[in-house]
């Protein structure tokens, strides 16, 4: 909301600069988001009165004058002749910048000597002020000109001002008005708030009730409705001061009647609406009725913006006996609009239910200054005052007479709220002692009226405009605001040590991150919201949004991989060829119509395996499946996951062209594999993409990170290499199992060191080479002992795997 410095000063005294004001308001909870200063016209020029004029001792054509500038007399040397003591003239004070022709340097008034006599300013001609093309002598002002008044104000022109853009928090609707802000300043300074005096204007003997009936059908939605009728107005342009005020805070001037309703709304926060009384009349009725009711099904109204609006039964309307004439609290109807031909007005000043206005405004997608104020909670207590204020201004500016005894239908009148505050509560919450008298004073200045004050507590009657004050804590807040949060001393951190089961899990997630980072993978953060187009899985297992921003982001990621694939694409299009990323994050799935979430960790990698190097046969090698498999093994070893088996899946599944499920005990904990070329192509990924995704929650739950030291071997080991030809269908796992089943004693380690297909190996078979390391903890093994053990292994390999042992 916007207010101006000068406007605020009409209601409360303060002598802060606009920057100081902004600072104070901000610290009071009204954040000032912007200040626009307006340099007014005739800055530094005031209305002054010549007290004496004598001949200059050193110059015949000059005179030395004493001139009253409103604060005191000044000595001015002047060359003009057309004035006498008592005349009122414009006086430019030192520092004032006089208008000059374009291109000329600015002319600044200074204190200086003219022929050895000091002059403290310059009395001006119309030409000097740029008000006339040429001028003979000083511009003489009318006798009723106010000495000391800024000259711009005297002329009715814009003086300097500053417009403040305020952020009003939703709990404080009372601050959506100039008086509301002025009231805060009054509370802070202790200076009184000056409400504008309502001018008593001519009224017409007729009572309002003779001309209109007001009927509120739903008092919950409309607790109060004040109606005034003004006869014989002349709709026309608004005076300059009114236009200026509205334009400065961003409103358009329409006509004197509408402008007054807007002005009073800005001034005191109460939305007002003026109807053309004639257009409310219906044929055959002696007097029109104003009915506050909800819309009937299929009812329509054309609002003031010219749009036809379809209404529903939840929407509150203002109607006459035949038709809707306004959408209550939101916008008037075109059928009752005030125009140039309007002469009789019905002025509405009402209070509507905030929730209802908000719902209506939302449904109609129609937000107005009025709806904004109503939906935040208007002051039910101010309706009558605002109505009278506006009516009197309308009569002042547009003429006419107000009918006597306005209608004030007030079915929703409620008791004044009483709230109490235990002084001790403030101390408890702030950690600082505030004197009781000071707290009472703060609340009183905020217009909370004490009804009971004891040593330990105060009860106050809450003014109607403070819809936010409902309980003790709200009063605590008021005390803090006025006391100043900056005056509450900080206390060093102290107190309980917290506890929560997640705390150690958080560390374990970081452990995973650190292992993966050391393995050369960089951490990514992907979008949680992805496109259903990017997920080849079963749609019924996907959690989708009811109100997505776009189809690009319509589901919650069931996997981290689509996001990582997008990130790979981002890198490749930006010419980073070697990319290895991981992410830890939540994924979402649906089973039995219930959405579930858990944390996964996923890796995706593509492009060259190593950083660029200038020699070596392997330097151009790309990541392949055994790179990601190696990561998995290294990660599991460090994180403490043992006993995992990988089972190849038959055929392509989901994102993978080829993959294996990773099984730990009875849990499938993840998948490893290669991205299908269809998705790779869609993402411009030319090199093969290797991927891995694991359920992190399961890993954390199933890990065994316990370590215990095993004595280092004291005796040498003996190695036996075996090369053998086996059918392609024999997996490494099968070899490992067979070796294990051989129960060869002292077999410490089995390592695969070669796999070969081709020369001398029949089609459908492969040659594999293993090293077998034998070692005993208590002695050096003899050849005989090793040979005996090794025979067990060879026997098992031949017997179980149909292996042909190669001699070399």
């Amino acid at each position, binding site marked *: 909301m916007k207010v101006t410095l000068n406007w605020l000063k009409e209601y409360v005294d303060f002598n802060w600069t606009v920057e100081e004001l902004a600072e104070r308001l901000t610290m009071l909870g009204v954040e000032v988001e912007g200040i626009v200063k307006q340099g007014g016209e005739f800055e530094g020029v005031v209305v002054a009165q010549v007290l004496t004029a004598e001949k200059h001792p050193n110059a015949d054509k000059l005179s030395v004058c004493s001139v009253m500038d409103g604060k005191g007399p000044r000595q001015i040397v002047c060359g003009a002749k057309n004035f006498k003591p008592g005349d009122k003239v414009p006086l430019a004070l030192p520092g004032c910048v006089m208008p000059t022709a374009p291109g000329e340097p600015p002319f600044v008034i200074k204190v200086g000597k003219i022929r050895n006599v000091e002059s403290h300013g310059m009395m001006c001609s119309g030409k000097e002020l740029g008000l006339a093309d040429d001028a003979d002598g000083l511009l003489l002002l009318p006798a009723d000109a106010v000495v000391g008044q800024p000259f711009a104000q005297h002329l009715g022109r814009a003086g300097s001002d500053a417009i403040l853009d305020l952020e009003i928090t939703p709990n404080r609707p009372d601050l959506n008005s100039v008086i509301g802000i002025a009231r805060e300043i009054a509370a802070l300074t202790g200076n009184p708030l000056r409400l504008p005096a309502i001018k008593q204007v001519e009224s017409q003997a007729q009572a309002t009730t003779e001309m209109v009936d007001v009927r509120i059908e739903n008092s919950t939605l409309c607790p109060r409705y004040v109606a005034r009728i003004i006869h014989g107005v002349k709709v026309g342009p608004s005076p300059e001061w009114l236009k200026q005020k509205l334009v400065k805070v961003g409103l358009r001037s329409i006509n004197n009647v509408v402008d007054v309703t807007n002005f009073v709304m800005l001034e005191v926060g109460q939305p007002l609406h003026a109807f053309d009384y004639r257009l409310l009349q219906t044929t055959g009725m002696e007097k029109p009725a104003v009915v506050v009711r909800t819309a009937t099904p299929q009812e329509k109204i054309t609002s003031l913006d010219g749009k036809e609006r379809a209404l529903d039964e939840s929407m509150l309307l203002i109607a006459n006996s035949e038709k809707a004439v306004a959408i209550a609290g939101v916008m008037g109807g075109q059928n009752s609009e005030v125009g140039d031909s309007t002469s009789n007005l019905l002025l509405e000043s009402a209070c509507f239910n905030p929730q209802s206005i908000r719902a209506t405004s939302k449904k109609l997608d129609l937000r107005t200054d009025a709806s904004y104020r109503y939906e935040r909670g208007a002051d039910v207590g101010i309706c009558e005052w605002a109505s009278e204020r506006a009516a009197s201004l309308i009569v002042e500016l547009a003429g006419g007479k107000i009918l006597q005894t306005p209608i004030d239908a007030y079915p929703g009148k409620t008791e004044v709220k009483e709230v109490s505050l235990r002084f001790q509560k403030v101390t408890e*919450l702030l950690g*600082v002692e505030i004197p009781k008298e000071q707290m009472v004073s703060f609340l009183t200045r905020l217009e909370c009226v004490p009804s009971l004050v004891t040593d330990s507590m105060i009860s106050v009657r809450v003014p109607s405009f403070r819809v936010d004050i409902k309980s003790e804590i709200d009063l*605590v807040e008021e005390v803090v605001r006025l006391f100043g949060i900056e005056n509450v*001393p900080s206390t060093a951190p102290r107190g309980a040590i917290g506890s929560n089961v997640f705390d150690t899990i958080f560390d374990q997630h*970081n452990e995973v991150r650190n292992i993966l980072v050391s393995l050369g993978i960089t*951490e990514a953060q992907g979008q949680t919201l992805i496109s259903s187009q990017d997920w080849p899985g079963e749609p019924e297992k996907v959690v989708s949004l009811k109100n997505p921003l776009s189809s690009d982001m319509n589901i919650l990621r069931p996997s981290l991989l689509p996001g990582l694939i997008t990130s790979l694409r981002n890198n490749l299009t*930006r010419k980073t060829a070697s990319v290895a990323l991981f992410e830890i994050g939540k994924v979402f799935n649906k089973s039995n119509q219930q959405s579930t*979430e858990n944390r996964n960790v996923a890796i995706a990698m593509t492009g060259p395996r*190593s950083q660029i190097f200038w020699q070596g046969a392997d330097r151009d090698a790309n990541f392949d499946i055994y790179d990601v498999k190696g990561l998995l093994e290294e990660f599991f070893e460090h994180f403490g996951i043992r006993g995992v088996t990988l089972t190849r899946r038959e055929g392509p599944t989901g994102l993978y062209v080829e993959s294996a499920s990773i099984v730990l005990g009875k849990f499938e904990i993840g998948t490893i594999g290669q991205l299908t070329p269809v998705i790779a192509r869609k993402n411009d990924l030319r090199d093969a993409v290797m991927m891995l995704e694991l359920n992190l929650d399961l890993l954390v739950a199933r890990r065994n990170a316990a370590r215990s030291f095993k004595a280092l071997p004291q005796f040498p080991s003996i190695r036996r290499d075996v090369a053998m030809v086996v059918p392609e269908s024999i997996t490494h796992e099968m070899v490992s199992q067979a070796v294990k089943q051989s129960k060869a004693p002292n077999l410490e380690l089995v390592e695969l060191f070669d796999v070969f297909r081709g020369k001398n190996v029949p089609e459908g078979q492969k040659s594999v080479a293993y090293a077998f390391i034998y070692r005993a903890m208590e002695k050096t093994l003899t050849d005989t002992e090793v040979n005996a053990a090794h025979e067990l292994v060879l026997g098992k390999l031949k017997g179980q795997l149909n292996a042909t042992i190669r001699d070399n």
Partner: protein
Amino acid sequence: MSFLNEVEPLKNAAMEEFSKAADLAALEQAKSSYLGANGKFTALLRQMGSLSKEEKPAAGKLINVAKGEMEAVLSKRRTELEMSASLPKEPTDFTLPGRRRTIGRLHPLTQVTNDIVRSFRKIGFVVADGPEIEDEYHCFDALNTPHDHPARDLQDTFYLEENQKKLLRTHTSSVQIRVMAKQQPPVRIIVPGRVYRRDNADATHNPTFHQIEGLYVDKNVTVGDLKGTVEFVFKELLGSEVKLRFRPHYFSYTEPSFEIDFTSPMVKKMGKEWLEIAGCGMVHPKVLQEVGYNPDQWTGWAFGFGIERIAMIRYDITDIRLFYENDMRFLKQF
């Protein structure tokens, strides 16, 4: 005695030959031609037996000295030849780039989160977590949010299609409720995590972003404690030269509520006086009541702020979308 006269010339010839050997093979060959089983020097030694008992000691000494000299030259030459053999043909260019191993990087948001967590843990906080799919009760109702509050709108909050009561949490404050409902006070937690708002992505918005929430409920917890803790954490995070300012604000779940601004030489360089950084306040009595805590017995404060915002300030990043594109050139900078 004649053969002893041959020792000196033979030694000199051998030493000459050793020193001139062009490579290790030539050296070994030279060695065996003098000192090998059939070597010339070895042949001389065999004649020792023809000497008389008196002659033997002097002759032995003479031969041993000669042999020692030869072996010294041999060993020296061997070392020389080994050295030159192990050198590359061309001298190594030590300015050539090395064969590098890659180390990954932690995402900047993770780094900032960890720094924040570390600061809080120093003063007794622990990390808590909660679901990202929430319900209206934990995200709004229990936090004293009015039923028609705009934050609940389809316009501002993501709802799930299948179950319209379920939504993506709009703030980590929902975890406050979950933790307090389960646990008796005192409570002292921080909650980092993802939150969701229905904003189109631009330089300062992303529908997904991260927040961190702090909550402390205990006996005699005051606004002063809140200020002290927040000041401690932000000084740890942004440097000891930062200044903080609290100013009154409004949140439904705290009262009194404040926004926290900070300033530092960097903020001034940006041409600003203050930069808004967090919201906070004393836990609203209604929230305490909702989780079954007696507000006359327990008080507390909560605060929350955006992790992206801290990271953007700390690293001078001007576009939030960079965090989610995972461009390696970006990630490698942290």
